[in-house]
C-alpha cells in the first residue's frame, strides 16, 4: 500500500511540476478560444458529478473529478 501511495504521490508531483514549470504566458486577449463553451472544464465536471452515482454503483473505483458526489444507495 505504501508503494501505491508513493506511486500516486510521485505521479502527482511530476504532473504538478510540469504544470508549474513555466509554460509560456498566455495574455488575456489570447484566450478567446479557451473561453469557448466546448473547452470548458467546469461544465465537464458538473456532468461527471451527476453521473458519479450510477457509475459508482457499477464500478469499483471512484474519483477523477476533484469533487465527492455525496452518498446514496444508488442503483
Amino acid at each position, binding site marked *: *500500500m505504501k508503494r*501505491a*501511495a508513493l*506511486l*500516486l*504521490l510521485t*505521479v*502527482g508531483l511530476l*504532473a*504538478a511540476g510540469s*504544470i*508549474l514549470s513555466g*509554460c*509560456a*504566458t*498566455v*495574455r*488575456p*486577449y*489570447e*484566450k*478567446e*478560444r*479557451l*473561453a*469557448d*463553451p*466546448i*473547452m*470548458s*472544464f*467546469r461544465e*465537464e*465536471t*458538473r456532468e*461527471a*458529478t*451527476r*453521473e458519479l452515482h*450510477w457509475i459508482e*454503483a*457499477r*464500478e*469499483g*473505483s*471512484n*474519483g*477523477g*473529478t*476533484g*469533487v*465527492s*458526489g*455525496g*452518498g*446514496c*444507495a*444508488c*442503483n
Partner: protein
Amino acid sequence: MQLARELRRNGAAILATGAAMVAGSPAVAGTTLHDSEAEMRFELFTDSDHVRVSSAGGSWGAALQDNWNVAVDWLRQVVTVPGIAAAPGSQEAADSVSGASRPIASDSDPHADFYKSRQQVSTALNWNGASAGYYVSSESDYFAQQVSGSFERGLLNDNLLLSLSGSYGWDSIDPAEDTDGQTEADRKTTTHGAFVATQVLTPITMLQAGVELSSVGGLQHNPYRNIYVDGGYIAERHPDSRLRQDVFFRLNQYLPNRASAKLGYKLYRDDWGIQSHTVESKLSQYVGQRVTVRYRHRYYVQTESDFFSESYTTPGGIDGYRTGDYRMGDFSSHLFGTKISVDLGRGPIEVDWLENVGIVAKYERYFNSNNFSANILETALALSF
C-alpha cells in the same frame, strides 16, 4: 452558453476576462453555475438487469452582489428493481439478488418489482473563489448528508488556477426487512480531499491535473446481498474501512473548424487491492450557428479486490470477508455516447424570447465484460438570465 452570449454582445474583452473562470477547477459538489441560470433535466436509465431509474432534476444559480453567488441543484429519482426470476433461497435467486439492491422479505412477493424513490438537494455558496456546500439525499433505507468547502486561486496572470477542496459525508443506512434478518441501522462516513491545478498552456490548449484522497469508514457492502456458500447462503461482508486515492489528467485542445478534443486519464488505487485505469476522449464540433455535437468514448479496466472470489468454500470467505459484488472483481467497460446541444438564441434569425434558451439531448451506451449493459437517455432545458 451564457458566456458565449456575453461575448457576442460585448466582444473579445469579456472573453478574455472570463477565460480564467471558464478554465476553473471543480467547485463544491459540482453545483456552481457560471452566472444566473437555471436548468431542468430528465434522465432515463435502463440496464440489462431490468433496473430502471427515472430522474427529474434541475439547477438554479444566481450571481449576487459583491462577488457572491449561490447555486442549488435538486434531483428526484424513481427506481424500479425487478423481482427475482427463481425460487427464494435457491442458488439462482441468490445470484439474481446480487445484481440489484432490494430486500427479499418473507412477507412480500420477491417475484414482484420493487420500487423506491430518492430525493437529493445540494447547495453551494461562493465568494471570491471560496465555496461552502451542503448535500442531502433521502431514500427509504438510506439517508446521506455531506458538507464541503473549497478554495481556488489564480496565479501567473490567471494562467494557473489552483484549487483545494474537502468534504465530509455521513450516511445512515437502515435496511428494509429482509430474509436474512439484518435490519440493524448502520453508518458510513466519507472524508474526501482534492488538489486540482489547471494550467493554460497555449491560446488553444489547457491542462488539468488533480490528486484525490478519500477515507471511508462503516458499512460498505450491500445489506440485501447474499453469498451462496457450501449449500446455503450468507450475508455479504466487506471491510469497514477503505482508503481510496487517484490522480487524473485532462487535456483540452481547441481544433480548427470550431471543434475541440478532450483527453482524460485517471489512475486509481485503494487498500482493498483494486487498481483501475480510465481513459476518456471527447470530440465536440459546432454544426452551423445553433448546434453543437459531442462524441464520447470512455474505457475502464480494474483489477479484483483481495477478498474477491467466484465462489467461497467456507463462511469465513477470505480473511473474514466475502462478496457477491461484481465490482470487486476484475472487469473492463466501455461507454459510447453522443450529445447534441442546441442554442436557440443563435443563428441567422434571432427570436428575443429564445435568446436565453438552450436544449440538450444525450444518449449513451454502457457495457462491460460481465455481459452487463445499460442505456442512458438525458434531455435538458437550460435558461440563462
